[in-house]
């Protein structure tokens, strides 16, 4: 375990972890994947207008966010932007905002249409981490998921990244769909392990309300695999990757070492400030959370008219911050501090019950979720609150 003694913040206590994170949402994709409910459009026509709008939006927050130590360009598919557009975006961000030295700068990339040139451009722009949307190393599965790339393309993309000197590459994988057997999933994992990536995200397929998959489910074309199999896949994945030296540090995230945990994402889970630019992006600072309109058109129009593209905002009460800390903390390996209960009354009975049932461990002053606890992380916080 990392830093259990010194951490007071709820997650590991590296000081740089308290610096803000910057997120840019690139709402463009070549095509929509079956399972995705993120906001994105297929036509690249609006990219220039979006880019202008992001620049205007960024300037709105210049005074309110002083220094960042992480940048995450996600989407959508950021690599839909051409090299010139990527450069324009990066230049604006690095010139417009201050970044701490050694910042983590991540770009999400899809294997299709990833040229060596584009990746080289990214590297030269300062990107030091790439999250590669591999999803599966099985072409049949990739087609099922509506992905446009083949597993060979993913391998090629990975090789290019390594040859360009990217020393921090993460692979995104999806599991738990009807046509996938456990042995097929193992094959995907094994292929990933052969590449020895620094980070692996394994997302269990979710039927998001807005995604096409949900419509297909409603229409009876696809079925969820059921809780029993979901459980088996989850436990197996966790055990297998830990056996291969990966740290299961969040429900869906594995890192080869503590330093390789995604710094940016961890800010979401520990109430560290972050600024999100782009349509549907969320921001958080000093107990206030706000989020942008989802539509690109409205986003651009609002900014062109000199308005913040904010859809809504909330100011969190102490109680709300507590409940979030609890819920978010129990999704991570660091768990939560026993001191986190502001009321002062320790939840002795539920803690005992959770411990007895193997859902958590208690280590010093921290409550740490076990693998079994991870599986019920949605209801686990409820045991300790109220």
């Amino acid at each position: 375990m990392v830093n259990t003694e010194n951490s007071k913040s709820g997650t590991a206590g590296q000081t740089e972890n308290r610096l803000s994170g910057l997120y840019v949402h690139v709402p463009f994709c070549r095509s929509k994947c079956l399972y995705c409910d993120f906001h994105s459009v297929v036509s690249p026509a609006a990219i220039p207008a979006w880019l202008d709008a992001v620049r205007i939006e960024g300037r709105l927050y210049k005074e309110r966010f002083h220094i960042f130590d992480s940048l995450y360009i996600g989407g959508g598919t950021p690599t839909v932007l051409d090299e010139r557009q990527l450069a324009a975006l990066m230049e604006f961000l690095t010139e417009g905002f201050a970044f701490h030295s050694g910042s983590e700068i991540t770009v999400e990339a899809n294997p299709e249409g990833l040229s060596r040139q584009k990746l080289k451009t990214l590297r030269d722009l300062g990107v030091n981490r790439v999250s590669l949307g591999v999803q599966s190393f099985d072409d049949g599965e990739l087609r099922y998921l509506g992905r446009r790339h083949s597993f060979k393309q993913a391998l090629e993309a990975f090789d290019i990244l390594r040859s360009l000197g990217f020393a921090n590459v993460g692979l995104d994988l999806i599991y738990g769909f009807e046509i996938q057997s456990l042995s097929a999933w193992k094959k995907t994992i094994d292929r990933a392990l052969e590449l020895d990536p620094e980070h692996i995200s394994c997302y269990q397929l979710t039927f998001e309300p807005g995604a096409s998959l949900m419509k297909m489910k409603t229409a009876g074309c696809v079925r969820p695999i059921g809780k029993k199999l979901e459980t088996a896949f989850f436990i197996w994945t966790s055990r297998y990757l830990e056996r291969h030296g990966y740290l299961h540090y969040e429900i869906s995230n594995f890192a080869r070492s503590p330093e390789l945990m995604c710094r940016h994402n961890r800010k979401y889970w520990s109430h560290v400030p972050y600024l999100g630019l782009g349509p549907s992006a969320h921001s958080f600072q000093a107990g206030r959370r706000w989020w942008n309109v989802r539509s690109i058109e409205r986003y651009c129009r609002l900014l062109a008219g000199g308005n913040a593209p904010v859809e809504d905002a909330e100011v969190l009460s102490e109680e709300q911050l507590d409940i979030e800390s609890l819920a978010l903390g129990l999704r991570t390996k660091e768990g939560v501090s026993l001191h986190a209960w502001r009321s002062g009354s320790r939840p002795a009975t539920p803690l005992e019950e959770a411990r007895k049932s193997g859902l958590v461990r208690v280590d010093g002053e921290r409550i740490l979720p076990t693998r079994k606890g991870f599986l019920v992380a949605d209801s686990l916080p409820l045991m300790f609150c109220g």
Partner: protein
Amino acid sequence: MKEKQVRNFSIIAHIDHGKSTLADRLIQHSGLVNERQFRDQILDNMEIERERGITIKSQTVELSYTSRSGEEFRFNLIDTPGHADFSYEVSRALASCEGVLLLVDASQGVQAQTIANLYAAMEHDLVIIPVINKIDLPSADIDRVKVQIEHELGLDADQAILCSAKEGVGIEDVFEAIAGRIPAPSGDAGKNLAALIFDAHYDVFRGTIVSCRVFDGKIRPGDIIRLMFNGSVHKVEEVGVFHLNRDPGEELPAGWVGYVIAGIKTVADIKIGDTITLDSNPVSSPLPGFKDVKPVVFSSLYPISSDEYPSLVDALEKYKLNDAALAYQKDSSAALGQGFRCGFLGLLHLEIVQERLEREFDQSIIMTVPSVQYRFTLLDGNTVTVENPQYYPDPVIIKSSAEPFIKAMIISPERYMGAVMKLCLDRRGSSPKIAYPTPDRVEITFDMPLAEVVFDFYDRLKTVTQGYGSFDYELLDYRESDLVKLDILVNGERVDALSLIVHRDRAREWGVQACERLKEEIPRHNFKIAIQGAIGGKIISRSTISPFRKDVTAKCYGGDITRKRKLLEKQKKGKKRMKMVGSVMIPQSAFVSVLKARDE
């Protein structure tokens, strides 16, 4: 000017035969309210009464009427509660009348409760006016109903009035019949005061409003009255009659029905059925029929969350102001914390109290399994009375135990006799007697333990007779019985609120039932829950709620966090409405479910 003539009457009917609708129509017809003020079922003014369609608290209203022959009348309509739990109140209300309208549905005809009501009215020697209601229904069969009235009720069917309260047809005939057939009240205003208390309400500003029927003498403001039950003395501040609202007057003379305000603090200070007389000039003996009604069903009441206890104390105090029948005292439970042990007239009364506390006083409460009052004779010769399973004596020192028995009277169409017999025998009924009050109807009488009827007997009876059975009971005596205490354990922790005293032969059945019920009611948790029924240290039944395996959502970034928190906040609110036993969340419904639904 000529004095108005007085008529005092009630309406009695089987449920749903249109009692409230007729009352409304009479009120409307008498011009007491205009169309705009008119609200359907004015007399049933409590929300619950409206919903359940039953009258819980009786109401009285005075109506003016000028007969066809030009005579002026004041009619006092005394509404009566409609459930066996309140049969004493009904009897006092009827004692205040000279006549009743016996309402029969034109399509359903004579029903069990029609007969039971008729018996009650006859007991008070009241004039009975049969009224056939709902004649507008396509399914109305007036001739058949007339035959029933003639043969099953033994009344003169030619005297029956045809009406449709809903359509306002025949209302004038009803008024004429009240004026013409119900006798004027006898009584002598010159004699010593004797007035019967048949109801009481609480008013925040005035204290207790006593509803009474003056038999002899008169009551005037300034009089010093004496309540004969306890000899307490009060000065009358105001008298008057009810015109939906109180209408003060100079006096209440013999024969009148009205209200008295006399600085009486709470309704608990008076007794229904008591006699009011003048302190200076009392009558020698009270009016007949007084009973000090004692609670027969007991249950403890706890706030869902212990910090709501003060608010519950407050709510109960306020509630009690208006419900003299409710008795309560402090109680505490290891599982549920601080609460109250309450005594009720019956299970319906219990449910009403629970609902009203929740709705009108915004309390979230848990009620424990109802119990009757048991008697234990100990080896040292002492006798203890126990109505709370918590105080069940150590079994090794019990010499004998006894429980209250009732005489259960059921009237039902003959075709359900077998089902009714089986139900009663299953409930430890004995000494059945069968009578045929009418050709195709049976009256079945059983001696039964009270404990067997307090849970869901009436519901079951309605089920097995498809709604055609009526039920009434009176307490008999205590009889020896082999009683044990059944405990329920949730994850090894005894939930004292679920313990109950039960006959040994029924214990296993109860234990299994309780475990199954709880298994259905307690939601799955993320850990395993064991539910056990135990007598002493011996487990007699068990069930297990297996944990759910997985509920985690894969992603939790930007927008997911707010969504997740909102869901948690909602669940947390839901949890507040649950009772925690250890870390098992037990929904309120579980406590009630244990005593319901013994599916036979």
